[in-house]
């Protein structure tokens, strides 16, 4: 299914790079150029772009106000003026899903950025400074000893049902994975000759870390960020579904699904469509992640 990986050996580690990652021939840049030829990645990114566009244009694309109740139109089957049907309050499912996309993508994106930031800071500290390594990694181990969803639910229980709390909870849950990945890259890069050379030139730690180590640790980080986005979208939906996520008044995919569950027999479309929306988004992200990994970091292939 995936295209053969014939471009191995050009990622971090094998290339003594001393260039910044914004420069045109950094390994990440080179990899990203190749992404265009990877069928998986292109399919994934196209899917995400479509979903992103519909989320951004939700206001214009929605035929109805997602919160507008029309009791005479309740539980209408798909077709006619409501092409995804209506729910038990006569609200248009299509409009609700479009607005739900905003929330899902916002949460996913925010969690991705926060976990990446945490991954860079703690992963670099842990991988580069030996003294901090043990302490940081034990804390990460402990955080990963909690089943992810359960930890998120527990954090939501104490913080209260707000969208921003969902972001906080999921970032806490998923950050340790990113920290581990950055740490592993830093450990590998630190042992390379060119870092020794830079150190011999009396470069400071900050300079070494941000200018010489981080650019070469970016490839696995980008891949992980894509998967974290996917996990976050799934987890947000799960939290909302069990009633521990975004407040029930917000049209999120998990909330729509959760409300529709009661009417599953009479009106299965209330649950089918938001589920498809979640699956399509996560599929897009997973395809993009798989494609990126094949191109950027063939060794990480699972």
């Amino acid at each position, binding site marked *: 299914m995936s295209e053969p990986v014939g471009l191995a050996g050009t990622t971090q580690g094998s290339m003594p790079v001393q260039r910044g990652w914004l420069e045109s021939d950094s390994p990440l840049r080179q990899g990203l150029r190749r992404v265009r030829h990877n069928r998986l990645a292109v399919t994934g990114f196209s899917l995400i772009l479509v979903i992103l566009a519909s989320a951004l244009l939700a206001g214009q694309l929605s035929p109805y106000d997602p919160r507008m109740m029309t009791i005479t139109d309740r539980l209408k089957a798909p077709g006619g003026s409501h092409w995804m049907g209506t729910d038990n309050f006569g609200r248009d499912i299509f409009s609700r899903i479009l607005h739900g996309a905003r929330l899902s993508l916002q949460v996913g994106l925010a969690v991705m950025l926060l976990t990446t930031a945490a991954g860079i800071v703690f992963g670099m500290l842990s991988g580069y400074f030996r003294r901090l390594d043990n302490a940081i990694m034990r804390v990460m181990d402990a955080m990963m000893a909690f089943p*992810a*969803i*359960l930890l998120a639910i527990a954090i939501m229980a104490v913080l209260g049902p707000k969208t921003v709390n969902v972001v906080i909870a999921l970032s806490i849950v998923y950050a340790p994975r990113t920290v581990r990945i950055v740490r592993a890259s830093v450990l590998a890069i630190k042992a390379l000759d060119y870092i020794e050379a830079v150190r011999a030139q009396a470069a400071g730690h900050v300079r070494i870390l941000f200018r010489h180590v981080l650019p070469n640790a970016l490839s696995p980080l980008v891949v992980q960020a894509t998967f974290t986005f996917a996990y976050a979208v799934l987890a947000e939906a799960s939290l909302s579904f069990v009633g521990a996520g975004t407040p029930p008044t917000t049209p999120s995919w998990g909330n729509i699904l959760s409300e529709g569950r009661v009417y599953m027999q009479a009106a299965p479309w209330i649950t089918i469509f938001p589920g498809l929306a979640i699956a399509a988004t996560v599929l897009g992200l997973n395809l993009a992640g798989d494609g990126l990994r094949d191109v950027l970091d063939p060794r990480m292939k699972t």
Partner: protein
Amino acid sequence: MTSYIIRRLLGVIPVLVLVAIAAFLLIHLVPGDPAMVMLGNDATPQQIQQLRTQLGLDRSLPEQFVLWLREVLRGNLGESIFLGRPVTQALLERLPATMQLAVLSLIFSLLIGIPSGLIAAVWQNTRWDQLVMATAIGGISVPSFWLGLALMLVFSVQLGWLPSGGYTPLWEDAWQGLRTLMLPAVSLGFMQAALIARMTRSSMLEVLRQDYVRTARSRGVGRWLVILKHAFKNAMIPVITTIGTAFGVLLGGAVVVEIVFTFPGLGRLVVLAVQRRDYPLVQGALLLTSVIYVAVNLAVDLLYGVFDPRIKYE
């Protein structure tokens, strides 16, 4: 080997201590006075004070932790505010159902994942490979609760083959128990099956490229004998290491699936506890599941040491 076991056992201690600290601090993350939040607006100042004393909230934080930990080590996880009975009792009552669900899901995911991955690797780049890999990437993208609802709609509502909810302990009525567990276990285990299939495939492909496999083939050993006897055994090593992690994911994921199938496990209890702001119960459930998770991971690691002799020298 003994030193490996001892090292691994000692390594668990700091993790467990940190897990305990995190679970303990959970209640202190509550914005405002946890006692007030838990009891709601109707509570009298006396009731709030009583709960504060009961939870030890009027003492200093380290003092509270020591007292709390001492009780936890004795198996006392406190009183559930809403149920009005010991948390340990309530949790242990629900635990067997969730464990059965998680174990059955794990068995399902291994039974489906490993052969599928094997097929995909042996017939790489054929239709079979494409089918397995496409199903697998679909599998890791579909939310378990949605799959559960879809399976319920087809197999319970439309076809009437399997019950849409409820629970019968396997030791009371194995057949009925299996029937009630079937749909929840499949919806919960599907994603792990997909992950295991992907991992088995790539691990098999890696091993099949190794010199010793080629040598065995060139010496005239049959293709399937090489695949199953020589390659498969080694390809399973990375898969086995993920079983512990998979179990943790299943244990956590059970929360969501239990809601779909009105399954009386830990998950439903936790969700109810969250809605009622019953923090001791949430805290206890979190602590219990993570201790189980750590224990399972430890067991897998130790078994792994037995199966893969190379680990001794590391």
